[in-house]
């Protein structure tokens, strides 16, 4: 018997729990030659801002042990372009599209959310209050419960779309932030964004990245991400999209057992463009092997 894989993240109905991490999967199309993206539960697309942005200076990426540091800095064509050029494509897909949004001010987040409200093809918003790669906004909002709540409330008021807030691991107490965001009305949480890190070129005696610091992702951060999901699951009732270093189905199952309802694959796409489907197929095989009829039985099971 085929197990039931369908899950719901705060109103976004996914036919299975596997999605993509924002910024690692472009707008979906780029991976078209390698996989059928319609098989995924959802795709989360590149971080979008109200105005177009050129992003940070290069180099923007450096490999680290079992990980990468990136400082893309939210390069994107802006919300108008997204609505005009990408949303019609999203509307043709047989998977949900979640748009990741960022702003410099609370008001900008709200205006952006309002602009995307009701656009056909967009199933939900992921609110990035945790980007370590931008000067204004970004991680600053996600570092304190009050500002995190403010952004959440403003976005909720501006849109009828499901609002998933993406948390930063670069905080003393991620549970506290999660509670504030829950109280402010979020429909779901994404856990986690990248860890703040840097690398230095010992020959040039300068930071490697053009932007000095960057966000660490990939297998290296998985233990931190599993812990973050574990803590957030204990802190709030909201459904969680877990991510951070997921490469295999086994990795994904760690997140689900820790409390994630869905999982996103990020950096692993670069290594294996089939990673999302490998994860999906592996989860399904695990359920069958263990005679589990519904994926939801596993969510948070390691707490019990």
């Amino acid at each position: 018997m085929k197990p039931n894989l369908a899950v719901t993240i705060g109103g976004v109905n996914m036919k299975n729990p596997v999605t993509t991490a924002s910024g690692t999967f472009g707008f979906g199309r780029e991976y078209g030659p390698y996989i059928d993206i319609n098989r995924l539960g959802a795709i989360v697309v590149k971080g979008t801002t109200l105005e177009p942005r050129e992003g940070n200076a290069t180099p923007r990426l450096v490999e680290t042990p079992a990980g990468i540091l990136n400082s893309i800095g939210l390069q994107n064509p802006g919300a108008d372009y997204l609505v005009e050029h990408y949303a019609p494509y999203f509307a043709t897909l047989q998977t949900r599209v979640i748009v990741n949004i960022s702003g410099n001010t609370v008001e900008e987040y709200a205006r952006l959310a309002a602009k995307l409200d009701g656009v056909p093809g967009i199933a939900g918003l992921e609110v990035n209050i945790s980007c370590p790669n931008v000067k204004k906004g970004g991680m600053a909002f996600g570092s304190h419960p009050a500002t995190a709540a403010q952004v959440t409330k403003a976005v909720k008021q501006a849109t009828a779309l499901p609002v998933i807030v993406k948390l930063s691991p670069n905080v003393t107490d991620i549970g506290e932030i999660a509670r504030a965001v829950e109280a402010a009305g979020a429909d779901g949480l994404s856990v986690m964004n990248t860890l703040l890190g840097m690398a230095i070129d010992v020959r040039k005696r300068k930071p490697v990245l053009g932007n000095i610091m960057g966000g660490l992702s990939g297998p290296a951060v998985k233990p931190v991400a599993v812990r973050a999901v574990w803590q957030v699951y204990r802190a709030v009732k909201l459904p969680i999209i877990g991510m951070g270093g997921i490469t295999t189905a086994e990795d994904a199952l760690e997140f689900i057992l820790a409390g994630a309802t869905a999982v996103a694959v990020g950096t692993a796409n670069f290594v294996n463009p089939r990673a999302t489907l490998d994860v999906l197929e592996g989860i399904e095989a695990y359920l069958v092997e263990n005679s589990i009829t519904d994926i939801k039985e596993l969510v948070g099971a390691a707490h019990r």
Partner: protein
Amino acid sequence: MSKVLDAKVMAVLPVAPETYYMELEAPEIARLAVPGQFVHVRCSNSQDPLLRRPISIHMVSRPKGILALLFRVVGKGTELLAQKQIGDVINVMGPLGRGFTLPLPGSRVAVAAGGIGAAPLVFLVQELANMKCQVTVYLGARDKKNLLCDGQFVQMGAEVVIATDDGSLGFKGTVPEMMRRHNDWRRTAMTYVCGPKGMMKEISAMLAEADVPGEVTLEEHMGCGVGACLSCTVKIAHHGQITNKRVCADGPVFPSWQVVWD
């Protein structure tokens, strides 16, 4: 179209100091590839090194389904690649990126190569030869020992002029210095350049000054290789506007006059 597949190593041999030639069985990639494109290669199955490595398509044999690479060992990834043995399997994605703009058949063209930059130009010169173009290759290297692909270029019917930094073969000096002494490239339909950044920048300036078109192949650290992550951007000026273009998807070949060098 691009594929991801497990390719069998059919040959791997050192051809110069720290430089290896490798043949992979990858018929789908060989069939689709055009000169200037690259493949994204997984050098190990471990998570360290994690990322793939971009390597230009050096040559293909479509009848044999062979994809050939020529690479220099500079770090962990290329080191692991050099250690592969015949029969080993390597996961390869490609062909990726946009290749060179080909001239009209029979045109006169120039090719400038520095060091390992010769790698993608062999596939290009082969294609140009097939198109009956008249090709001059300005080929440079640190020294005689490190000179790459000269024989291949000659065999394809190109005129080859050589420069070495230490004068151990041909002109003593850099490729741009040598080109300044020649005039042929000023009257070509296109000059194709691949080599160290400094060399490409200098030649681009010379081409602009002589008001002739050229194409350069750029490198940047890559994540996805398919245009999704925006790691590999370079500044490109077009109609007076400077925008970030992706080396992996919009390049690696760019018009020489559009590149904003830093």
